[in-house]
């Protein structure tokens, strides 16, 4: 967003950034009540961050990012039920599996135009949805994966009813992965991604191996999405087909767009606004939330994303 600042300056830590994290961790000490919501925010933020890596930094539009989120969720759920209740082990396995899936499907996604990409990503998510539905013996099908008993974090901290442990867990994961993402986008690798997003032809003429970079960032993004899915599964002890549905992919796209793509904090800001609004608006009737969301999107698209954000920033 602050594109005119040089990259070098962009990479430096500023105090508002630190403040964001201090507050986020400070909220852990809130009296019980809001931690379940905060946990959801942290998870959506991680998911949106993952989408930002491909949309904001590499220019790949996806309508099916839920594919990796859902895969991570089911992987974590099944790990917990059949292998080990330890959440960290589940998180790692889910992340790796999602990364592998990203690696595989990147080959499909890299071909063709924006338009085919939209449909291929959507199609991949739908295929996974159908598979999850068909393998109901494993996934519980439409009833969802039940009976997960998640073990204590680090063998010590039990997941409580109020979600404090859950929030601490999700936020820490988000923080660590955020730091890694921050490092990556400001690295030489990140710089070459910026080149690719701006002009592929030019990037290739500079010697940047475009496809290989895109495969790498797509797999990375998938890994992040998988981690977010795993966090959701573990902190709610439940996985349903809904993790793979189009609505999930749309939600994360919205969250990211609200916060602004391409500056890492967009996903975080978007997740906060999205969840808080959702929480408030759907308290009345669930349709309200959807209606306002829709209206917001229409206005956003009509006015133009750049212009709207410039107005807001003033």
């Amino acid at each position, binding site marked *: 967003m602050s594109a005119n600042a040089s990259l*070098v300056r962009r990479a430096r830590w500023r105090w508002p950034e630190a403040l964001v994290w201090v507050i986020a961790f400070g909220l852990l000490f809130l009296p019980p009540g809001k931690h379940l919501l905060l946990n959801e925010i942290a998870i959506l933020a991680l998911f949106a961050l993952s989408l930002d890596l491909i949309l904001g930094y590499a220019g790949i539009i996806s309508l099916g990012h839920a594919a990796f989120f859902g895969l991570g969720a089911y992987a974590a759920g099944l790990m917990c039920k059949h292998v080990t209740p330890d959440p960290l082990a589940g998180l790692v396995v889910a992340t790796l599996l999602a990364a592998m899936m990203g690696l595989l499907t990147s080959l499909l996604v890299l071909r063709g135009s924006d338009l085919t990409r939209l449909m291929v990503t959507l199609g991949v998510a739908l295929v996974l949805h159908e598979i999850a539905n068909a393998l109901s013996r494993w996934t519980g099908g439409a009833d969802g994966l039940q009976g997960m008993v998640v073990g204590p974090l680090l063998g010590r901290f039990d997941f409580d009813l109020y979600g404090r442990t859950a929030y601490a867990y999700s936020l820490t994961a988000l923080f660590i992965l955020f730091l890694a993402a921050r490092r990556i986008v400001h690295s030489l*690798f990140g*710089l070459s991604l910026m*080149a690719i997003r701006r002009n592929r032809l*030019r990037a*290739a*003429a*500079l*010697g*940047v191996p475009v496809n290989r970079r895109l495969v790498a960032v797509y797999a990375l993004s998938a890994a992040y999405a998988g981690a977010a899915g795993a966090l959701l599964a573990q902190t709610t002890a439940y996985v349903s087909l809904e993790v793979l549905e189009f609505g999930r992919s749309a939600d994360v796209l919205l969250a990211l767009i609200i916060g602004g793509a391409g500056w890492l904090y967009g996903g975080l800001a978007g997740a906060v606004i999205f969840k808080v609004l959702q929480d408030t608006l759907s308290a009345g009737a669930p349709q309200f939330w959807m209606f306002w969301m829709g209206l917001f999107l229409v206005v956003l698209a009509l006015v133009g994303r750049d212009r709207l954000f410039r107005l807001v920033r003033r």
Partner: protein
Amino acid sequence: MSAVLETLGLGKRFGGIVATDNVSFRLERGARHALIGPNGAGKTTFVNLLTGVLPPSSGRVLLAGEDITRLKPEARVRRGLVRTFQINQLFADLTPLETLSIAVDERLGQGADWRRRVGAHADVPREVAAVAERFGLSDVLDARTDTLPYGKQRLLEIAVAFACAPQVLLLDEPAAGVPESERRGILEAIAALPSEVAVLLIEHDMDLVFHFATRISVLVDGALFAEGDPATIAADPKVRAVYLGEGGHG
């Protein structure tokens, strides 16, 4: 002398249009070679075929004797076949420093390094500084590219290509659209390119062409029409009729 770049029966058609017609062409090591031809003759298409932006409909491309017809653009760049663009293809909101860094990093094989930060101001990588110096860009390294005067942007196009350490440099109308006042800088930069780099210059400005080139090829309707040293080409009545007569500067 041996050819560093060679095409064998290279052809490209767009639907009904034959943009490149059975071109067999040689570029010698360290050459100063110009490619001229009327608008729409297929010069840019030829460059696109050489650099792998477009796949040819027929024929082959050899770089230092090796068949590169099926290599991707970036793989050709890594082997030293580099081009500039007739229309600026620069990253408007990045700085020359960043743009040049990308080229240098890629060449040094560290473009995939995700741990190393992009160089801080104090230690601008030496190579980037050297390239910037050579093309008179040192004082604008930190400005947004789209704020540079057009002549500087054209210089950056060439500088970026140069940063890829070419053995063959394809310059597609490097001075096109540059106002007279800024032209000199570009001409000097081109004249000062190291002699071991083979240069293929595409240009409509005949002064520049005849100053620079020791060999000239003429492309008409996608086909090689004539080739020879400048004196021969200038004297060729066919060339005069087809090309020079048609409103060229010469």
